[in-house]
């Protein structure tokens, strides 16, 4: 037999439970509405996504999306999701200019992309006028020296790489030789030619004993390098310093090996794809990387997360198939870190100020050292390491080298 009192208590308990439940559901809904009501941070992306050069921008975008998707899956930044707005620049300077304006008009707190240095030159003055920070992996040395107030290089610059190539040759390959015969082998593109001019200047200033004995400028559509390499080797250089992108570097190294050359070739980042190094398996071919390889087992937690993300977006087939994909991922990581510090009400102007005050950004091992921005430094990544293939394995060679380019 159940007493009236027990029934009353049970009714009260049920009423209380229902009230608590309703309240908690209501509160939860209110919280969700509050969160949903928060507008997203708009981040702009513009780069070449169609045409013959689409292979530059598309992986950059895939890498950025992979990172921002993971941020949004965790709830966004300060409860605000990141809305990545994308415009195809088609590598056209006029379109680049209008895309910066359009993205600024859409409320972008920051814009990323632009792997072609000529396009960055078109975009930088517009970004300055619009007061929206542009994080680019294709920033030319000219725009960083002195640097533009709203332009940040989210990647290493070729000017820094030139310094690192000289340091590597001097310290690691020929520590006891001051009178080197140097051959230059590089692509016939505006950005690479500008980098080689800086490289030549640095060599003149720092290594007066070095002599350029061969200077080969190679078109991008080259299908065989035998003649150019034979001509270069006939000058009997001690070392080849390269500014060659992957397919051009593959052909050149293949020709060097075929012609029995044993001299070292030291390339910039454009020829650092893991497959490029592995395909010829020539231990005398060194390429600078600002990111560890997929064979570096202790690269760090952030690197492992990146590999997982790359797999999910199809840019991994045992090796990461595009250097630009890592740059896209790393740039997205940098912008997210800056937004985190900038706060919930961050806008494009406060984001620029925050970038100046951000100090170090921990990439979890994606870069060799933390990314650094300050009022006197707009190049985020400044450290690289040379790798080579040896018996089918990639190995780091020598020390890390650091060189930030540009001044206020």
């Amino acid at each position: 037999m159940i007493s009236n009192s027990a029934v009353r208590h049970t009714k009260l308990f049920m009423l209380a439970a229902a009230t608590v439940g309703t309240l908690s559901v209501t509160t939860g809904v209110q919280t969700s509405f509050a969160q949903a009501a928060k507008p997203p941070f708009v981040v702009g992306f513009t780069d070449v996504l169609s045409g013959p050069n689409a292979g530059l921008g598309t992986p950059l975008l895939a890498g950025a999306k992979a990172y921002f998707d993971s941020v949004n899956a965790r709830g966004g930044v300060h409860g605000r999701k990141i809305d990545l707005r994308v415009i195809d620049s088609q590598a056209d300077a006029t379109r680049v200019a209008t895309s910066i304006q359009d993205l600024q008009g859409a409320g972008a707190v920051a814009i990323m992309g632009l792997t072609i240095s000529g396009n960055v030159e078109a975009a930088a003055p517009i970004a300055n006028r619009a007061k929206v920070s542009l994080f680019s992996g294709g920033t030319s040395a000219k725009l960083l020296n002195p640097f533009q107030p709203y332009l940040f290089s989210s990647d290493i610059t070729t000017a820094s790489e030139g310094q690192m190539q000289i340091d590597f040759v001097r310290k690691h390959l020929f520590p006891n030789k001051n009178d080197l015969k140097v051959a230059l082998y590089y692509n016939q593109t505006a950005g690479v030619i500008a980098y080689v001019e800086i490289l030549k200047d640095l060599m003149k200033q720092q290594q007066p004993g070095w002599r350029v004995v061969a200077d080969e400028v190679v078109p991008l559509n080259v299908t065989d390098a035998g003649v150019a390499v034979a001509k270069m080797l006939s000058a009997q250089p001690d070392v080849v310093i390269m500014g060659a992108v992957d397919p051009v570097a593959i052909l050149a190294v293949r020709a060097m090996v075929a012609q029995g050359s044993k001299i070292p070739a030291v390339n910039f980042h454009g020829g650092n794809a893991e497959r490029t190094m592995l395909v010829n398996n020539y231990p005398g071919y060194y390429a600078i990387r600002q990111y560890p390889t997929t064979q570096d087992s202790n690269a760090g937690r952030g690197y492992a997360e990146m590999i997982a993300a790359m797999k999910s977006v199809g840019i991994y087939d045992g090796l990461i198939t595009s250097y630009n994909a890592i740059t896209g991922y790393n740039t997205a990581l940098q912008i997210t870190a800056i937004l985190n510090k900038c706060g919930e009400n961050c806008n494009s102007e406060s984001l620029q100020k925050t970038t100046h005050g951000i100090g170090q950004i921990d990439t979890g091992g994606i870069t060799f050292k933390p990314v650094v921005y300050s009022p006197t430094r707009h190049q985020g990544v400044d450290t690289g390491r040379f790798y080579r293939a040896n018996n089918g394995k990639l190995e780091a060679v020598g020390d890390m080298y650091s060189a930030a380019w540009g001044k206020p």
Partner: protein
Amino acid sequence: MTSGLWIQILVQTLIYTSMYALFGLGYVLIYRASRVFNFAIAEMGLFCVLLFTTCYASFGLGWAVVLTTAGSLGLGAALYLGIFSRLVGQEEWSQMIVSFALSIALLAICGLIWGTGIRHIDVPGKSDTLFQIPQAVTLTVTDVVLVVMGFAVWAILSWATTMSRLGVYMRATAENPLLAAQQGLPVTLIICTAWGVGALVSAVASISYGIRLQVDPSMILLGLVAVPAALLGGLDSVFGKLPGAIILGAAQATATAFLGSAAGDVVAFAVLLLVLLVLPHGLFGSKQVRRV
């Protein structure tokens, strides 16, 4: 100049010749049959090489060859039936502009289907050495296959287009489609065949390049570099493609040796201009052909 450098010039000439001859044959076959200068030939090659990578990854080499051959023939025929057969009778320049638009569309379609990333074709043994002169030249299986294929395809098509009945039909169709049809020739089938074979040879060139290096959208630039070879030999001459390609390849390789790599393309187009000033229809082109 060392003997090693001359050997390099010879080898590079052979490789360039083969590549240019294959793309050049793509241009000329289609032009001979339909009087369309097809700017989309390299993009058709890109489409086919991407199809090859997919088939190779899924079904292996044998099926990839079969399916890509079928796909190339089908692509060429479909483009003619779907687009260019509707432009018959139009001015040549308008058809050329349509082919230019097609090149842009095909490139975008390739990007939508396969993405724009770099792909590699890892055929077993592709880097094995087949021929070597120590300290000078190493020719891999891929290099030799490319050169042999270029010369073989040229020889077969030269015979087929001049000596075989199909070749005569093709020329008759190109010169006067109405008359050819009245004579009972299957005009549409003949032109479709030419477009299909044109796509197939561009596929062979693109796959060879892809196996040697990599597959990515920038490889369409090769098609543009092959245009001088197509014009040099004569736009309607299949036979002329090899001599044209040899002259161009040799000029480029020699210019690279004496003037530097950057001079190669400049010299190629300079040779083309010089030849066309003297022989407006190219070395082996028919005089009836109007320049486009």
